[in-house]
């Protein structure tokens, strides 16, 4: 009994610790005061209105959306190839190769950022653009994409593709007609997760962004001005809502995929 009670208290404290700061976002986003402090001053949507009329923000949002979309597509494309190879192909050094691909998960982002900065500026002497951010984001997203898609591919019976070939299809059309539809929920899930990761990233973008900042970098630049804090709160509210929605959709797709292949769900992010 006592242990159960302690565990309950621990869970509550933990959840409060985790989510209270985030819960503050919408509270102050709708608060009618420029200062972040209690007591609240009344309901207002003026911060959201100001977001609407800030051109620099729109530019940052556009950059972020572009980067996130391209990153999601690239990382998922690479992740699909890698996950398929991991589950179906046999080749020497497979485990080592996969280990290296998964490594960026464990590396500090700042290390990746500095390393890429040196490669781009010093070694190749290229300018920093949205594409340098895309390269960095793809690097850190691929492991996540593989982790998501591994589940989808590992659940597939390898003889399905062979059966399609046996029935007259070429290797590619067997993949397209059988494997692709079966892993499609995993692919959608991977696209969404990579999109979120890219949208949320600050460290890599801060180092590698070109003349136009991404959204998180822009938000960071706003924090220098005290009176724009509620603005950040409003923006944060939008981003959190967006992220959570995408995450839920991604998980829904993953589960649906598992159910369609007649499997029990295991792993995944939610």
């Amino acid at each position: 009994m006592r242990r159960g009670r302690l565990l309950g208290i621990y869970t509550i404290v933990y959840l409060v610790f985790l989510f209270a700061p985030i819960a503050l976002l919408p509270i102050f986003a709708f608060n009618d005061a420029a200062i972040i402090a209690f007591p609240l001053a009344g309901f207002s949507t003026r911060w959201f209105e100001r977001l609407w009329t800030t051109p620099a923000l729109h530019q940052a949002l556009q950059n972020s959306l572009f980067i996130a979309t391209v990153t999601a597509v690239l990382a998922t494309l690479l992740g699909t190839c890698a996950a398929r190879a991991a589950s179906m192909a046999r080749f020497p050094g497979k485990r080592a190769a996969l280990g290296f691909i998964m490594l960026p998960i464990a590396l500090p982002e700042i290390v990746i950022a500095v390393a890429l900065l040196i490669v781009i500026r010093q070694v190749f002497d290229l300018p920093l653009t949205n594409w340098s951010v895309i390269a960095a984001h793809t690097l850190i997203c691929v492991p996540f994409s593989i982790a998501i898609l591994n589940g989808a591919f590992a659940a597939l019976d390898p003889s399905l593709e062979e059966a399609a070939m046996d029935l007259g299809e070429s290797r590619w059309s067997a993949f397209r007609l059988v494997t692709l539809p079966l892993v499609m929920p995993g692919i959608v899930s991977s696209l969404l997760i990579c999109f979120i990761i890219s949208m949320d990233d600050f460290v890599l973008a801060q180092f590698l962004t070109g003349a136009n900042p991404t959204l998180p970098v822009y938000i960071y630049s706003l924090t220098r001005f005290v009176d724009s804090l509620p603005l950040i709160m409003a923006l944060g509210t939008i981003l959190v809502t967006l992220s959570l929605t995408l995450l839920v959709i991604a998980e829904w797709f993953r589960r649906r995929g598992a159910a369609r292949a007649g499997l029990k769900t295991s792993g995944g992010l939610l």
Partner: protein
Amino acid sequence: MTALIELKGIHKHYGDYHALRGIDLEIRKGEFFSLLGPSGCGKTTLLRTIAGFEAPSQGTLRIDGRDMQGVPANLRPTNMVFQSYAIFPHLSVAQNVAFGLRRDPRPREQKARAVADALEMVGLGGYGGRAAHALSGGQRQRVALARALILQPKVLLLDEPLSALDKKMRETMQVELIKLQRNVGITFILVTHDQEEALIMSDRIAVMFEGEIAQMADPETLYRRPNSRRVASFIGKMNFLEGRVDEAGERILVDVAGLGRGEVSPEQAPAGATPGPTTFGVRPETLSIVYPGEEPQGRVAPGIVDEVVYYGDMTYYDVRIEGVAEPLTISMKNLMGRPVLDVGTPVGVIWDEKSLVVLSR
């Protein structure tokens, strides 16, 4: 009559592992051919080589006179029923069956009729609209069959298609498969590790061990005249007796330890006979027991009942005979008025030299 499928000196290496070690095989048109062997002997590898999923490391494969080297699976006149059935879970039953017709130029309605006919043939008429992932094992197996047969392949390859089914279902499907094969007249190559299944279904059987064919024959020959101890013990129950071949000229004279001397025909030595020590095989049903009050007919050896296993229609006795290393297993029909004997009963064992097989060492 030339062979439909012809394998010559097929070898397959997986890295260091030598999975197929020189397979020579000819399969005739319309034949029901089985590959029988224990797990890991290379049956699936051989089947996949014929289907085009594995390239042999050495040797030639011809189907219908055409060399299959470099011909991918999708261009071979073979179709396969996979061990896992490989039913496409995202498609309906009808879509599964119609999968191979994608490149077929016939109009839509004709194809739909072909699908319906194929489903009818395997006893799944009216199931076309069902979701494939919701089918039972037996139904999946039928869908896999229909999907392969609709393409009217020259050869249908079946990799342990019945092993996932329960005993009852398996027996039903065995009979149905035989009927189906006779109706469609397509050459079937069946992989199985179930000797009974192979005996029931096949016109000819190749018994494989460790990547080699140990014996290839029709079921009766295989059962009655196995050429080695390995084959004999893999197919049915066989008693092994030590002894020697005394003379192997025009007449083959043998001496079986514990039973006595006799003469055997050349057919009884499928692997040949050379004078010297050898092993003999004798099937349980070719031996019999003298019951109290019966007149023994033939040659009798005295023994003592060592073990009794009652099967209802049959009883299996293990009888110890002096001079024979292992007790001999004898199967007896439980006829009216024939009692089941107790352990320890002294009995006579009737044997016949004609039922002996001389096995290669």
